[in-house]
C-alpha cells in the first residue's frame, strides 16, 4: 500500500505544477531507451491532454428514464441547489449542479472522478425546494446514483 502511494507521488515529480495535473493523465514509462541510451526518468514523462473531444448524451437520456430523473432536462445550471446543499458545503466534491452538467454533456473523465460522491446526498430536499426550474435535484441525485451503477445507462459499470 505504502509503496504504491509513494509511486503515485513520485509520478511526474518534475512537473512544476504537478498538483494541477490529474494522476491518471501522467504517463511515465518504467524504462525508456532511445538509440541505446537509457532515458528513463523525466524524459519519458508525458501528460495526456484533458481536452473534451466529444459530447455524449446517452447517460443523460438514461437518467431521464429513471425514477425521479425525468425533470433533469430542465436544469439551467444556476447553482441554487449547490448553494443550499449542506453536503456540498461540507464536502465540495459533491456538487449537484456540477454532477447534472457533466452527465448532461457526458464528460466521461469528470464523471469517473466524482461519481462515487453522488451517494453522499442525504436526501434532505433543500435543493428541490430551492430549484427555480422544478428540476427536483434530490430526485435527480437518486436517479444519478442508480445510473452510475446501472448497465442500462452508459458510463456506469
Amino acid at each position, binding site marked *: 500500500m505504502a509503496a504504491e502511494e509513494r509511486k503515485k507521488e513520485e509520478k511526474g515529480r518534475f512537473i512544476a505544477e504537478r498538483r494541477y495535473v490529474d494522476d491518471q493523465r501522467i504517463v511515465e514509462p518504467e524504462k525508456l531507451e532511445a538509440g541505446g541510451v537509457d532515458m528513463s526518468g523525466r524524459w519519458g514523462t508525458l501528460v495526456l491532454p484533458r481536452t*473534451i473531444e466529444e459530447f455524449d448524451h446517452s447517460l443523460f437520456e438514461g437518467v431521464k428514464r429513471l425514477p425521479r430523473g425525468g425533470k433533469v432536462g430542465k436544469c*439551467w445550471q444556476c447553482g441554487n441547489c449547490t448553494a443550499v446543499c449542506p453536503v456540498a458545503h461540507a464536502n465540495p466534491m459533491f456538487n449537484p449542479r456540477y454532477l447534472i452538467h457533466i452527465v448532461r454533456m457526458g464528460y466521461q473523465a469528470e464523471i469517473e472522478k466524482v461519481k462515487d460522491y453522488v451517494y453522499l446526498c442525504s436526501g434532505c430536499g433543500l435543493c428541490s425546494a430551492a430549484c427555480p426550474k422544478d428540476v427536483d435535484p434530490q430526485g435527480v441525485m437518486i436517479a444519478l446514483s442508480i445510473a452510475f451503477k446501472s448497465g442500462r445507462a452508459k458510463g456506469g459499470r
Partner: protein
Amino acid sequence: MTGTVLVVGGGPAGLRAAVDLADFGARVLLVEKRDQLGGAPVRWKYRSLAPDFTPTEEVMGPLIGFCESSPMVEVHKGSVVEGCEGSVGDFTVKVRNEADGTTTEHRVSSVIVATGFEHFDASVDPRYAYGRAPNVIGINELEAMLKEGRVVGHDGRPPKRVAFIFCVGSRDRSTNPWCCTVCCGVSIKQAIEMKQTLGDVQVYMIYMDIRTVGLWEKLYWDSMEKYGINYIRGRVGEVYYTGEKLLVKGEDTLVRGPFEVLFDMVVLAVGIEPGPGTKQAAGVLGLKLNEYGFIAPRQPNVHVDSGRDGIFLAGTCIAPMSIEETLSEGSAAAMQAAKVLKKTVAV
C-alpha cells in the same frame, strides 16, 4: 408650410411611422436606400420573428402593402436624402435617386430617421473562420435557409451537429463593445426551428450569458425543456476547418474543461451594428453620433428626440433593439411628427 413628413428608411420603424402618419392624415415621403421596402427582416429573408414564431410576412406584409398602395405615401426606392435645410415646420430636402442620378427637392414639416442596422460582418473577426471555411454561417443566412425549409451544408447534406456561437461581434472591445440584445433570443428561436425542420439534429448553444429579456425568456426555457437543446457556457477562441468538419475550440467554464469538438455547421450569432446608411443620414441631417456610431439622442432615455428640432429618431439607428420595440418607436416618432404638424399647419 407643408403637411408632409419625410421618413428616412423603409424598415419596420420607418414603415410603422409612415402608416401611422398617413392614417393621421399627413402626407409621407418615404425614402429607402434599397430597391425593396421592409428593411432587415425582408432583406435577410427572416423566416419568423421571436418570441412567438410569427411569420415575418404577417408583421411586415400589411405595412409594406399599405405604403405601396396608399396615395398619402410617396415612396422613393433606391434613393437617399442628400441635403436638408430649413428648420422645424419647413425643411427643404433633396432626394437623389441612385439609379438614374436625378435629384428632386421636397418641402417637409419634419423628418423621421429610421435607418436601421447592419448585421456584424463576422469576417472582421478572424477567429470564427467566417468567409474562409464552409458551413460557418451567420444567423442572418440561417434565417433565409429556414425560410426555404432547407437547412443544408455546402455539400447539400443536412447537418447532424450544429453549434451556435453567441456574442459574435458583440461585447468585445476589439469589435463592438455593446450587447446586441436580440441575438440570444433569435438564435434560440432558430435553434428550435432547426430542430423542427431537421428532426435529428444536435444543437449546442455556446453562450456567455443568455439575455432573453422579458417575455423572450420563454424561448430559452422551451428550447431546453421541450426541444432538448444543449447549452455550454463559454466563449469560442477558434473555429478550424479540418477539411471535412469544423473544429470548435473553447472552454466549458462550468466544469473548467477545454473542449475541441467537431461540428457539421457553425452558426454565428452576429450582432447589430450601425450601418453606413445611418452615418450618411446623420451627416446630411446634422445629427450627432455616439461613441459606438449609433445616432445619439438628446437624452439617452428619450429615444425619439434627436437633439435637433423637427428631426426625430426611431428604431435600431439609436441602439440595438427588438422588432417589437422598433415598431413602437416608429409610432412614437410619428406622434412627434404629428405634434409638429398640428402646431404648424393644423391638419
